[in-house]
């Protein structure tokens, strides 16, 4: 009974971790975001713009 109560308390505790903290504790999600955001906003967007420049004749 006591064990079940402790497990329930632990379960509640784990549920209560705020989403922001879970994001900050997920190191590989942060790695994903830290690579994808600049890749899309700086590299891909920039490459798309440069590739649309007409080639001189």
């Amino acid at each position: 009974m006591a064990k079940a109560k402790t497990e329930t308390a632990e379960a509640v505790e784990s549920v209560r971790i705020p989403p922001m903290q879970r994001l900050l504790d997920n190191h590989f999600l942060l790695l994903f975001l830290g690579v994808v955001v600049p890749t899309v906003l700086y590299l891909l967007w920039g490459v798309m713009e440069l590739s649309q420049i007409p080639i001189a004749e």
Partner: protein
Amino acid sequence: MSVTTDTNIIGGVAAKFRTCPATGLDIDLAAQRLIKANAVAAIVFLAIGGLFGLLVALTRWPAVHLLSSDMFYLVLTAHGLDVLLVWIIFFEIAVLYFASAILLNCRLAAPRIAWVAFGLMMAGALLANVTVLQGEASVMFTSYVPLKAPPNFYLGLILFAVGALLGCFIFLGTLVIAKEEKTYEGSIPLVTFGALTACIIAVFTIASGAIILIPTWLWSLGYISHIDTVMYKLVWWAMGHSSQQINMAAQVAIWYAIPAILLGAKPLSEKVSRAAFLMYILFLQLASAHHMLVEPGISSEWKVFNTSYAIYLAVLGSMIHGMSIPGAIEAAQRRNGFTNGVFEWLRRAPWANPAWAGMFLSLVMFGFLGGISGVVLGTEQINIMLHNTLYVPGHFHATVVAGTTLAFMAITYLLVPLIFQREIIWPRLAKWQPYLFGLGAAGISLFMMGAGTLGVSRRHWDITFSDATLSFDYPPAAFLMLGLNGMSGILAAIGGGLFVVIIVASVLFGKKVDASNIVAALGPKPQKQMSDAVTSYGSAGTFHLPGTYILVSIFFTAFVLYYFVNWKYLSELWQMG
């Protein structure tokens, strides 16, 4: 005396540990050896690169004008390579291993691969250096195409980058081990989180470097006929500028670490400081865009979004650290009993401790000189007044030399007793070293920015244009600025040389550190025991910080004034009507 034990860890992997007499942490001996190797390599390249820097400063000094034009560009290339890339990244790998295996009290992941990484970085650095010194690769740090260096120059950079990337994965692997072995509770310490931020930025940086340097290497070998110059510049800066953002995250982690170790300082709010690092992870790399602000062919939307929107979010992160770190120091000092008046906590800080002095000078100079000038350069409209002038090297000497290099020097004064287990010899000399180097670095930054504001172009061997067909005269003040820059370079070289000599001599001849002298070996500090604040999660729990509010107000006032003064200068460039 440190005790060495064998410990079996998960997966049947055995690692040898010693117990740190100061912290009680188990220190993986493999991690310790790798930290030593990377830190020593870093300092050797700092010495070489710093010497090249002195030659550059003496050539820019018109009255001295030391080197011939060929030698100037050769030395400038080697200087950029050795200090912007090799010194910094070797040291950052040491910081990554320290912030993971040591602070998390666990074994380092895959130490053999870590040695392979070290070997690749060393081979790459040597190959690139030798190629530059042979005189065929004076393409400068940026190596803009169509300037073509021999293939070994690019190959050296690629090998170095691959080694650094392996080091990043070893750091990430060590975080996994620490989590599996439950060597920490809850979230990783803030300093380790800062190192994680540096690691993430490094992965993007190195991947971008691979995207551009591998084709450029093939182009140099003759397998590819053409590399588009603007495309090269776009992708190269994703590496070139982001590599300096790795420094930024690593140095901020060090700014939190040193007050935590010496004073027991905890961040004002762990959550807010972590959110500030998240801003770095998401947006800091986008600052690369300011190098493209005058390029045709890229839309204003791309330029404005990546600079005037995304950069400001990263700057917000820096603002948070800029208040949180002095605030953490003030809170800790007030807790340590320095409660009189508004600034007793600052006056009674351990200014004779080179780790402390280096950290605080780095924080102040980075913020006032590097941070504010960075925002000015990152604003599309006012950037145009300063683009490709000597203001740009002035800015990045404020960030990389006065900021990062001084911060790395500062933490080295703690790494020598904690990791090399040696006392710092010549403590009186060591006390003055950060001030000498800091003053020199501040002078270099300010006077180059001053010359840039007067229009002096960067990367120019001779601003007198002595044999040019069309002559041009810069104002006499520009010559004064470059003379003062040369003198500051000498001062910084003396400070940097002292650092190298003190650290090398301490590692080779310093008195051995054990339980009886470890706390004293960390240098002067207000408390007689080492704080564990650097290895734990938690906030300072107070916002009674009158001194910090005043300091932050001074910073904001300087920031606003300088920013708008530049807009005023811009309004005077083209007279209307």
